């Protein structure tokens, strides 16, 4: 497929170091992309005849996975995939903090060391434009490659659309190629400690003002009421893109605020609009008065463990971060954690941002049919139901699984989980503007948030951020 492969191989050997020009495409970090596909159409077109799981038997698929309960559930079920298809799966599991470094280096090198991998919707914006991701659309629509039981309509539409993009900065999701399939996800809501709420006579906040007020109140009153060192609300604060997308972006969106405005292809930073400045100032204020000490070092590890250790009265973050502290025997707060959709926006909005652990295929994979069968199985009803019921695959991407009796029974024990999930699921989507510089923009945004928290003027910090991003993103 790739006409330049022989060249690349030749130039990459040590002896050819001197020849300059072809080196870029040769060693290059593979940024050449896969333009060779443009003329040739999708490899999915090669699959014809009636659908059969066994069509690619004898093949081996290589997967790069991130350490996660969803992954554990997948690995536990791999035998049934191999039985069904005759395809072997080899996998590498890497620690979460370094997973994307590993994946990025692998993809950007232009190698096909892995056929399939886990990624998030935001990664599509970085990996998609250079052509590293296979468009799964042709596979999905080819009835020879995809069985009817896969049932595309069963996915929550916002989740499926999150992996669908035209690769044009600023263009909305839900159009263009399908670069990732939803597999497991996390919605961002409020989890709270029922014990402290009862003791202090609190009810979950319905507005952001209430949430701010309540966070401060818990920090002031809880330590005196037998909750040593407890503060109000745990939210992420480290200098990372991951700080923005959970609680912050959710509340930001409920206020109807945007990260960027798109006008005829022009993308303009909007995090410095007067309303956004006011909201950001309030958020920083909330953290100062009712958030965790040393907030600027807070990743989800700290947020989640504080909720479990009864140091945080509330958590505004991924539902999974609270769920795994809430289950029996996991932490001192087990059984005392309940879920709530969180504060509504001024107009009642429950717009929610999300993280989706998706599965994607390497555009350079030489094993696409087998890889597609794997993706189809891993995102299919059979595995996802089993993973949800027997494993810890707790936020189903499929409606059918979310309505499954056994699943519901399992989740019933956690107060408010199902109700919360069902309340927000239709309003949960990717709230960011898709664009390639997402990671830079959100990292700088987090740094700006830290500066405002540190006492700098919100207007000037956010104006600085917007000015900086305008030149990078536009």
């Amino acid at each position, binding site marked *: 497929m790739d006409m330049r492969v022989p060249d690349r191989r030749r130039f990459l050997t040590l002896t050819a170091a001197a020849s300059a020009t072809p080196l870029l495409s040769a060693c290059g970090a593979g940024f050449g992309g896969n333009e060779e596909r443009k003329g040739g159409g999708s490899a999915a077109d090669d699959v014809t005849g009636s659908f059969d799981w066994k069509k690619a038997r004898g093949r081996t698929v290589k997967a790069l996975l991130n350490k996660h309960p969803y992954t*554990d559930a997948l690995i536990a079920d791999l035998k049934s995939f191999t039985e069904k298809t005759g395809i072997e799966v080899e996998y590498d599991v890497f620690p*979460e903090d370094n997973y994307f470094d590993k994946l990025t280096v692998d993809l950007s090198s232009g190698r096909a060391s892995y056929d399939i991998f886990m990624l998030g919707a935001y990664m599509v914006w970085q990996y998609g434009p250079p052509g590293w991701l296979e468009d799964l659309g042709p596979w999905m629509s080819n009835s020879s490659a995809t069985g009817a039981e896969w049932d595309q309509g069963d996915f929550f539409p916002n989740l499926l659309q999150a992996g669908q993009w035209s690769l044009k900065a600023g263009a909305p999701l839900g159009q263009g190629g399908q670069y990732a399939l939803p597999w497991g996800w996390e919605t961002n809501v409020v989890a709270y400690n029922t014990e402290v709420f009862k003791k202090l006579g609190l009810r979950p906040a319905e507005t952001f003002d209430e949430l701010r007020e309540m966070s401060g109140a818990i920090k002031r009153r809880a330590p005196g009421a037998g909750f040593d060192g407890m503060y109000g609300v745990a939210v992420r604060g480290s200098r990372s893109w991951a700080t923005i997308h959970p609680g912050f972006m959710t509340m930001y969106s409920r206020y109807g605020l945007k990260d960027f405005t798109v006008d005829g292809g022009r993308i303009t930073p909007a995090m410095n609009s007067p309303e956004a400045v006011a909201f950001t100032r309030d958020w920083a204020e909330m953290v100062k008065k009712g958030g965790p000490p040393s907030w600027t070092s807070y990743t989800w590890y700290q947020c*989640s463990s504080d909720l479990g250790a009864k140091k945080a009265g509330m958590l505004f973050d991924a539902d999974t971060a609270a769920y795994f502290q809430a289950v029996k025997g996991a932490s*001192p707060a087990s059984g005392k954690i309940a879920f709530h959709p969180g504060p509504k926006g001024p107009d009642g909005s429950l717009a929610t941002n999300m993280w989706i652990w998706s599965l994607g295929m390497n555009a350079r994979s030489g094993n696409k049919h087998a890889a597609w069968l794997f993706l189809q199985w891993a995102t299919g009803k059979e595995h996802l139901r089993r993973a949800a019921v027997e494993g810890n695959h707790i936020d189903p991407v499929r409606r059918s699984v979310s309505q499954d009796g056994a699943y519901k029974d399992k989740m019933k024990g956690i107060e408010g989980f199902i109700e919360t999930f069902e309340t927000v699921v239709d309003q949960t989507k990717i709230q960011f503007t898709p664009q390639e510089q997402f990671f830079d923009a959100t990292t700088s945004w987090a740094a700006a948030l830290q500066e405002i928290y540190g006492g700098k003027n919100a207007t000037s910090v956010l104006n600085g951020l917007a000015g900086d991003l305008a030149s990078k993103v536009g």
Partner: protein
Amino acid sequence: MKRRLLAVAADGALILYFVFALFPVAWMIILSLKPANELFSTYFSFTPTLDAYRTVLGAGSDEGVPFLRFFVNSLVVSLGAVGLSLVIGLPAAYAAARWRFRGSENLMFTLLSFRFAPELTVIIPLFVLYQKLGLFDSYVGMVWVLQLVTLPLIVWIMRSYFSDLSPELEQAALLDGYTRKQAFFKVALPLVGPGIAAVSLLAFIFAWNNFVFPLVLTSSEAQTVTVGALSFLGGDRPKYNLTAAAALVSVVPPLLLALTIQRYLVRGLSFGAVKS
């Protein structure tokens, strides 16, 4: 009296430093013995359990991290890297210390400068190169790349040991009819034995603890403990007890090596006695 007081003060200062140095290690031991649900809620009073070690070592584990294999990988790769560095590095250090030749300082400095190339600069092209040469995820590849860590350290530190060694002994040996090679192996090398032991230990530790290279240049076959230990921090909850246990288990080989080397050092010292 004043001297006694001074000695006590010195011991006091020493103990103070060691409290700082050892407390985190002690804390990691405590952490590794905690039940998973008490990681963040108890400090010193809890019912200790060996569960974390059981999980890390793969007994009764559902964690899916083949830690023992990583362990063997680390051992092979680190020992290989130090061994190769000694074979290549000791002659180089000796030459740099004994001969003054055109460009010797520049050559030595170039070697040192390899050590401070930021790993991230080379990591992507290196990754591609390794894939092409078939060195990706292999012991040979890891041993080679770790030379960046171990070789400059060994050459530079051993050079100062060699140049501290009086050349008269070797000259005497040469007069006794030894060849240059024999003089190196039979006279010079034994005399710097303790230095070799100390620097090998340091090099071994740095190779053992390296993180960026195994992260990017290995996958399942040659992955090492440092990457493996971090795997316990993902997913549902940060399992610091497992990471602590994994880190402590991986301290065992360098620690054993240190103790072994202590025995060897006694021998090295007796050579020193012969010399004087």
